[in-house]
């Protein structure tokens, strides 16, 4: 609208505020200043490092901060290191856009799942509206996941299509999260709204 090109940046108040990482003109990932930070991406569950390209929690160590240096500071932000060199010539490694918070991570049947993975799949279905709700339950002493998704008012009269849609969403979610959720279509405007910090995950599982 204003004819201004916008660049993505990453920062946090614990680390000098904005500008911890910044996009270059390539706009493919944010270079993080490795002369200032040691960057690690770890599995938030095991705290083991993950290979480049894999999503995990960003852990930073400051190299030059004097009053309050931070060592292996867990940011709770989920991202990944983009493998390879950037065509712009900078050698500082690149972080992908933040993919959520590690606090959001769901552990279901021993598998780590991030709600953003589910959201990304759901957003690809044009039959669906934007709101969804993930419910975790204990069913017969096992973990179970139900995903309620709001649909647009399409082909309500077509039972076969509604079922086919449910099956396709289930299949794609299973391929992504390796667990077969129960998918339920619900009418529009029946789930909590996505504005602000909507409750996207309800966990009613038994705690042992």
């Amino acid at each position, binding site marked *: 609208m204003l004819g201004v090109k916008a660049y993505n940046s990453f920062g946090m108040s614990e680390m000098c505020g904005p500008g911890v990482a910044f996009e270059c003109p390539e706009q493919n990932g944010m270079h993080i200043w490795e002369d200032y930070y040691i960057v690690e991406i770890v599995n938030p569950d095991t705290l083991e490092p993950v290979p480049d390209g894999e999503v995990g929690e960003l852990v930073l160590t400051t190299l030059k901060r004097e009053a309050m240096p931070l060592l292996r500071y867990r940011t709770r932000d989920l991202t990944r290191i983009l493998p390879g060199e950037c065509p712009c010539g900078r050698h500082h490694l690149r972080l992908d856009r933040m993919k959520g918070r590690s606090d959001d991570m769901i552990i279901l049947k021993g598998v780590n799942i991030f709600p953003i993975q589910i959201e990304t799949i759901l957003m690809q279905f044009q039959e669906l509206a934007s709101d969804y709700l993930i419910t975790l339950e204990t069913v017969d002493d096992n973990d179970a996941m139900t995903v309620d998704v709001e*649909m647009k*008012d*399409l*082909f*309500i*009269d*077509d*039972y*076969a299509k*509604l*079922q086919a849609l*449910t099956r396709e969403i289930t299949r794609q979610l299973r391929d992504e999260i390796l667990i077969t959720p129960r998918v*339920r*279509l*619900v*009418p*529009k*405007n*029946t789930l909590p709204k996505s504005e602000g910090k909507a409750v996207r995950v309800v966990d009613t599982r038994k705690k042992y």
Partner: protein
Amino acid sequence: MTVHQLSVFIENKSGALVRVLRLLKQENIQLIASTIADTADFGIFRIICSEPEKACNVLKEAGVAVSLCEVFAVELDDRPGQAADAIAIFASEGISISYLYSFLLNGKGVLIFRTDNAEKAAEVIASNGLSVIEEKDLSRLL
């Protein structure tokens, strides 16, 4: 040569059906025929009623997932075998019936159905002289 039908998406939870029916009651809308197809998680409540456009708007405004669609309503004599003969005509023309329900009114049988090919079904109805109920005839049924 069709009538309007409301197709309402009903969640499988208590009170969902009565909510829809009460909304129609408040507007003094009269049901002529209805049926529910169900699965574990949701049902489709199909309704033939007085003032279908108004009924659809009332439900939409109340946030109910509903669509207005066109279905055939074929009138038959109330004698054994009439439905079989009527449906056989569609089968022989290769037209599939997606769903069907029926009711009896004033000594006539009425078959409500949707096909996978509405255009061809209309031709078949015309060429075989089947008696269809039109939207404007619906008030006659009340």
